[in-house]
């Protein structure tokens, strides 16, 4: 296992918008938990007014500009295109996508990597809804919508994975490039579209349990009529995949 791991390089793409404190914490934690792994962190910041990029530059001084890459964009252009932008600059043969808000804890990265090596999977996706996984900090309403959305999607789409809207995932780079180019949705639906399309294309997908602690710092960037968007996305996926 160690041998194969040495040949692999992991590009960790972290999109940020106003995550000044979180990005510093998460970069520290990534370095703490990935000791003997070849990796780079690609921060795609969309011109955050809170100075996220200044912090990233300071972190580059600590960890090296070859380990922490800043690939900013001039203004807030959305998550989906942030991944595509980051992917263009990725030099690894594997890509990890994770949020900067500490809901995705870097301590799970080794289990993603291990799972991929053991199974040869094209995608390893983090799931909150199996043994060992979980969520902290959601009220009843949030749990209810989450469960409802999940049952609906499982019944209608038969996606073959237990957590559709989670976005903590490891991809073979070529697979991510293939899947992402056919995805057009935004927000939550984007995560769902990625995994459903990958599953339809027949890629080997594995799951690892993760825990999800709702963000401590900063504010949520998704909002508004999420449920309506979700339902629209479901219909869209039903007729296009």
């Amino acid at each position, binding site marked *: 296992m160690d041998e194969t791991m040495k040949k692999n390089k992991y590009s960790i793409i972290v999109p940020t918008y106003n995550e000044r404190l979180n990005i510093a914490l998460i970069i520290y*934690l990534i370095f703490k938990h990935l000791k003997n792994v070849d990796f780079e962190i690609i921060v795609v910041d969309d011109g955050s007014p809170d100075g996220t990029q200044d912090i990233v530059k300071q972190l580059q001084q600590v960890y090296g500009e070859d380990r922490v890459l800043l690939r900013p964009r001039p203004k807030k252009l959305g998550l989906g295109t942030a991944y595509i932008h980051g992917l263009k600059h990725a030099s690894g043969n594997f890509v990890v996508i994770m949020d900067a808000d500490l809901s995705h804890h870097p301590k799970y990265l080794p289990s993603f990597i291990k799972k991929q090596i053991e199974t040869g999977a094209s995608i390893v996706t983090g799931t909150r*809804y199996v043994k060992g*996984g979980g969520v*902290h900090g959601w009220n009843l309403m949030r749990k209810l919508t989450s*469960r*409802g959305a999940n049952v609906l999607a499982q019944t209608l789409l*038969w996606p073959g994975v237990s957590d559709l809207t989670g976005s903590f995932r490891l991809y073979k780079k070529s697979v991510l490039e293939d899947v992402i180019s056919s995805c057009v949705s935004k927000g939550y639906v984007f995560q769902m579209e990625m995994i459903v399309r990958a599953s339809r294309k027949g890629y080997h997908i594995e799951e690892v349990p993760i*825990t999800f602690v709702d963000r*401590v710092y900063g504010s949520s960037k998704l909002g508004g009529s999420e449920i309506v968007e979700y339902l629209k996305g479901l219909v869209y996926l039903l007729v296009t*995949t």
Partner: protein
Amino acid sequence: MKHIVKIMTLLVALSALWISLLQTSIIPESYTWLLPLYFIISLGCYGLLMVGVGLMRFPTCPHEAILLQQDIVEAKGFLKGKGVDIGSD
């Protein structure tokens, strides 16, 4: 095959079965007429049950929140030591 086509095929197959039941009258016709209703009701019940069970068994992890707080303290300490300007909150 698009997924909606799969689901439609399934529904068409079910309706075909239902119509054939109506015509052959293996079971009394009055029952057969109610079958689609039963089908829809059981589908609804299944959905509600799954959501209910999911809610009851919703996996939570309060301990993780505490561990995360410790990680945050540790990270802040390290970063301050390196002179990274993370503010004082």
